[in-house]
């Protein structure tokens, strides 16, 4: 399906406006669950506005790579969002890329994020970059195997096609293959968005930081772009998880009623997934860095089981 400029605009607007809300919900609910009052749900919007209006301080050792990184992170997050079906079954840019392009673009964003962490010459940034690239590397096989499993049962790497196939009558929600692939992808979601038990997004101790450490030197509008980009990436990964495994309520045409219903259902699914993330974050403690490969290889074996079960259950 050819890209429709209106659809692109609408989906971009949805991404930009919804992403901070989800981050805010997760933070606020986590606080409530931990018996604190916590920030209000709309706090990230105010934070972003604050960052945009502040002056910037750039390190004297940083080069142009430092300044380019926020743009790359922001733009790749938006591009990925445009390739993922959210409210409608057809994503606006589904012709330009499927799940493999999504993984590649996220990797591009991470590449520049890591370079941005190394540029100012601070050891914290270097440590964050090193850990982030390592965790991403060991999460990739699990991610790819889970994606392969879903793609094999559907016959395509095109996300819109995966969603459309999931809406066919032969699709079984509680098929063990899909449950195990969902579990594997959920663990990879935690790894990619830097949530407990892999990374604590609320930590103040630099030696325990992974994602935050790379953002230490950013301020002003660059920090706004980085934070927004991270929120959008989180929203997009959740949308992939929600829409591939629970593809109910997606609009098949552009009528206002269907779009409204699709939006409402999408919101519901994302909030449900956020609640699951909050639960997992509250119940678990952050793992030691060298225990993270254990968790991710569990995800890999789960994905391998999912693959095996495609022909195990005949």
């Amino acid at each position: 399906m050819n890209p429709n400029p209106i659809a692109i605009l609408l989906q971009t607007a949805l991404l930009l406006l919804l992403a901070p809300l989800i981050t805010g919900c997760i933070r606020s609910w986590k606080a409530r669950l931990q018996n604190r009052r916590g920030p209000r749900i709309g706090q990230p919007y105010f934070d972003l506005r604050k960052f945009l209006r502040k002056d910037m301080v750039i390190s004297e050792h940083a080069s142009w790579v430092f300044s380019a990184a926020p743009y790359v992170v922001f733009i790749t997050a938006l591009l990925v969002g445009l390739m993922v079906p959210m409210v409608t079954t057809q994503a606006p840019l589904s012709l330009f890329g499927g799940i493999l392009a999504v993984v590649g673009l996220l990797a591009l964003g991470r590449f520049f994020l890591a370079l941005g962490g190394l540029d100012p010459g601070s050891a914290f940034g270097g440590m964050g970059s090193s850990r982030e690239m390592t965790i991403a590397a060991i999460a990739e096989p699990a991610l790819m195997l889970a994606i392969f499993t879903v793609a094999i049962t559907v016959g395509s790497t095109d996300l819109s096609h995966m969603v459309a196939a999931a809406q066919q009558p032969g699709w079984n929600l509680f098929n063990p293959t899909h449950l195990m692939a969902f579990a594997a992808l959920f663990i990879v979601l935690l790894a990619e968005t830097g949530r407990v038990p892999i990374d604590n997004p609320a930590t103040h101790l630099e030696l325990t930081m992974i994602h935050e450490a790379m953002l230490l030197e950013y301020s002003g509008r660059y920090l706004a772009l980085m934070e927004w980009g991270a929120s959008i990436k989180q929203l997009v990964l959740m949308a992939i998880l929600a829409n591939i495994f629970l593809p109910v309520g997606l609009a098949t045409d552009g009528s206002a009623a269907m779009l409204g219903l699709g939006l409402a259902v999408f919101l519901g699914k994302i909030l449900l997934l956020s609640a699951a993330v909050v639960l997992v974050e509250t119940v678990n403690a952050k793992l030691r860095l060298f225990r993270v490969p254990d968790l991710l290889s569990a995800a890999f074996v789960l994905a391998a089981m999912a693959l095996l079960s495609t022909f195990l259950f005949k």
Partner: protein
Amino acid sequence: MNMNPAAPTAIGPQIVMLFAALMLVLQLLLVVQKMLLTNIRLFALQSLMLTVIAAVIAWYYNATHVYIVAVLTLIGKVIFLPWLLNRIVRRIRIVEEIEPLLNAPTSMLICGGLTLLGYIVARPFTTLEKLGNNTLAIAIALLLTGFFLMINRRKAISQVLALLTIENGVMLAAVALTTYGMPLVVELGIFFDVMVAVMVLGILVYRIRESFASMDTSKLSQLKG
């Protein structure tokens, strides 16, 4: 190339398949989990799933004697045995396993390989399954991974748990393959056998602890003359 196999559309076999897969996932978790109390709970959960599978099969195919199996499993393996093992663990006051022989990722990869092996072994026997689901492969996988669990762990309690999971696998094969299962007498016999074995092991474990101040079964090699 659509590889989606035609999944059985009836709800009964679907639930059986789902819970059998969950039993396998729980087995994997047992392999990597080191806290003994959690392991006992995982085993209880696995036996609960076996109960549900038995109950579903009994209801769906109107085989009343399988209800007895379900009830026995519920009383014995979901309530009684975990309680017993819990008591033993608390008396001995050791709550965590020592480092297993192989580390977590390697163990998990081996279990994945054993599952694959279970599938290969079970493939020629698919005609035996009158209920149309491939739980024989899962049962064999439970058996093999249970054995691997027994080899990998060094504390006696964990090895007892591994034996019990092997028995779970055998029961799964017996119950889920054909509606008639094994003769009730045989099932009862196996059941009480395992019960007694666990109680004896419980006493032995306590004795081992007293003699060696540790539940590490590798210390038993000191008994050699």
